[in-house]
């Protein structure tokens, strides 16, 4: 009875993966490493840029979620909990557009800041069309998922563990740092793995918020490579590089869930 699901996995995942791997080693119909050489020559900065943005966004998302969820778990606040879950239902493109409106040089944020005289609109700083804009958008969008996952992990920590700490005089912050975080560390690692891979593969947000000049995030490079250069080989090589990182994370995830004690 395992055949149908197996067929689906093979058809939807392994076949495209192998075909992508295959194409990444082809140049002018010949087996070659040229595509990877090109990736190394043209895109090594972009690879680092993508990793850097993903890691920074991930750190921010997990850090904010760890604190916010701690507050929700310990103090409890339904409205806060609801507000933090809203981004879950906002599509990436809408987030991208919203952030453009908010963060553009003459966007909502700068206009508001200009009102109070913090920003000079004749020479406005731009957060949109830069890596900062991408990070802010990715954090905003992923925060909801992070809150969902982290809060679930926190809620699995039994109340007496927290009460014992509170009883000893631990503040809310200390309860989060000393009890909630370490006790839900395995779940946090899993949540991080999920979000990191999704950030690596983010496309619409970097396309809409990132600058026109390089460096770009990898998925944007893949898009340009296919649409403007008609170069499937290099595009697939770029894809394989992202696969590599995602699989590293997946391996870590698998090790965590299998090594977890009962």
């Amino acid at each position: 009875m395992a055949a149908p699901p197996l067929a689906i996995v093979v058809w939807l995942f392994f076949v495209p993966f192998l075909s992508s791997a295959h194409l990444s080693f082809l140049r002018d119909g010949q087996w070659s490493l040229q595509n990877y050489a090109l990736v190394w020559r043209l895109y090594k900065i972009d690879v680092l840029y993508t990793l850097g943005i993903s890691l920074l966004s991930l750190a921010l998302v997990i850090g904010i979620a760890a604190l916010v969820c701690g507050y929700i778990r310990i103090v409890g606040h339904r409205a806060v909990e609801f507000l933090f879950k809203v981004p879950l239902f906002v599509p990436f493109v809408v987030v991208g557009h919203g952030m453009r409106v908010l963060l553009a040089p003459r966007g909502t944020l700068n206009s508001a800041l200009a009102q109070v005289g913090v920003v000079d609109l004749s020479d406005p700083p731009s957060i949109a069309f830069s890596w900062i804009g991408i990070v802010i958008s990715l954090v905003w969008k992923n925060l909801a998922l992070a809150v969902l996952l982290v809060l679930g992990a926190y809620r699995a920590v039994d109340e007496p563990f927290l009460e014992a700490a509170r009883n000893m005089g631990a503040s809310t912050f200390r309860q989060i740092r000393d009890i909630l975080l370490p006790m839900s560390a395995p779940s946090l690692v899993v949540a991080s793995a999920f979000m990191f891979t999704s950030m690596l593969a983010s496309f619409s947000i970097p396309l809409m918020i990132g600058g026109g000049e390089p460096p770009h995030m990898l998925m944007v490079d893949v898009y340009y490579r296919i649409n403007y250069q008609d170069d499937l080989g290099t595009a697939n090589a770029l894809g394989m590089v992202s696969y590599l990182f995602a699989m590293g994370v997946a391996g870590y995830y698998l090790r965590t869930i299998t090594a977890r004690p009962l």
Partner: protein
Amino acid sequence: MEVRVEGLVKRYGRVTALDGVSLGFASGGLTAILGPSGCGKTTLLRSLAGFVAVDGGRILFGPEEVTALPPQARGTAMVFQHYALWPHMTVFDNVAYGLRLRKLPDADVRRRVERVLDLVEIGRITGVMQRRPAELSGGQQQRVALARALVVEPRVLLLDEPLSNLDAKVRQRLRAEVRRLQKAVGITAIYVTHDQEEALAIADTVVLMNAGRVVQSGSPQEIYSRPESAFTAEFLGVSNQLAGIAEAGGVRIGAQRLPYAGAVRGRATLIFRATDASLATDEEEAAPGHTLLRGVLEERLFLGSVYRHYVRVEGETIMVDGTEPVEGGPVTVRVPVAKLQVYAA
């Protein structure tokens, strides 16, 4: 530190968990709060710790009112039913946590942790300190939990059914340990339990609660030998209950009539303990100070120290303990008049 609560009220929706509880807890004494599950005893303990915000009344630690203080500011330490030792910390870190929060120098922390682990007789301290709680037995875990609570020198020690997770043997031994520790430290301790034997064995004062109210409080001896209500009598020890009608000079139970000189009239509940009654196969003249009930012996169980006999009396089954087995059939149950309690039903 003397602890007092005055008119404590706590409601959960429509359920009243604490219905105007007023009590004093003697300084340096161990008070057991006893009652069936849902009687409000745990709510009372948790409101003392500050985990539960009460809807009415006051809580005083000595002269200081702490009703509105958060748990962090109360200076209580709680020992939990499931120990609640932090699984990701070593035994040392668990016990040291409260001291580190107080920013004590490392040398002081180590000295005090070792001293308290020694006090709770954890065994080879150096070996145990670097272990995780999960590597210890239940009894050892509870000793660590006690150490963690005592090390911060709390004003009040709160114990929430601390031994109920342990098997009978360990429970008996730790019960004596808790008592020894509490006396050695001289701390005011409040001990919640549903086990009447544990409460009687361990406490200076026993408080019996039911349905959010205090039913009776007093020394273990008082509460055991002079129960003021059918509930108390029933809850403390294996008791027999018979429904009857109290009249001047006697109580009618079905077709039988027992002599009675008390003041209760009308529908009444007779209560006596299985250990206080005895069996005689032949109709015997009532020895002075005894009253007789006729019944039929239906069942007998050997409990180790005694035989427990189940006797059918006027449609109800009562228990009578005896050191000698008695064969089934018609029997006479003898109850000392002084041990027979009559309460208005």
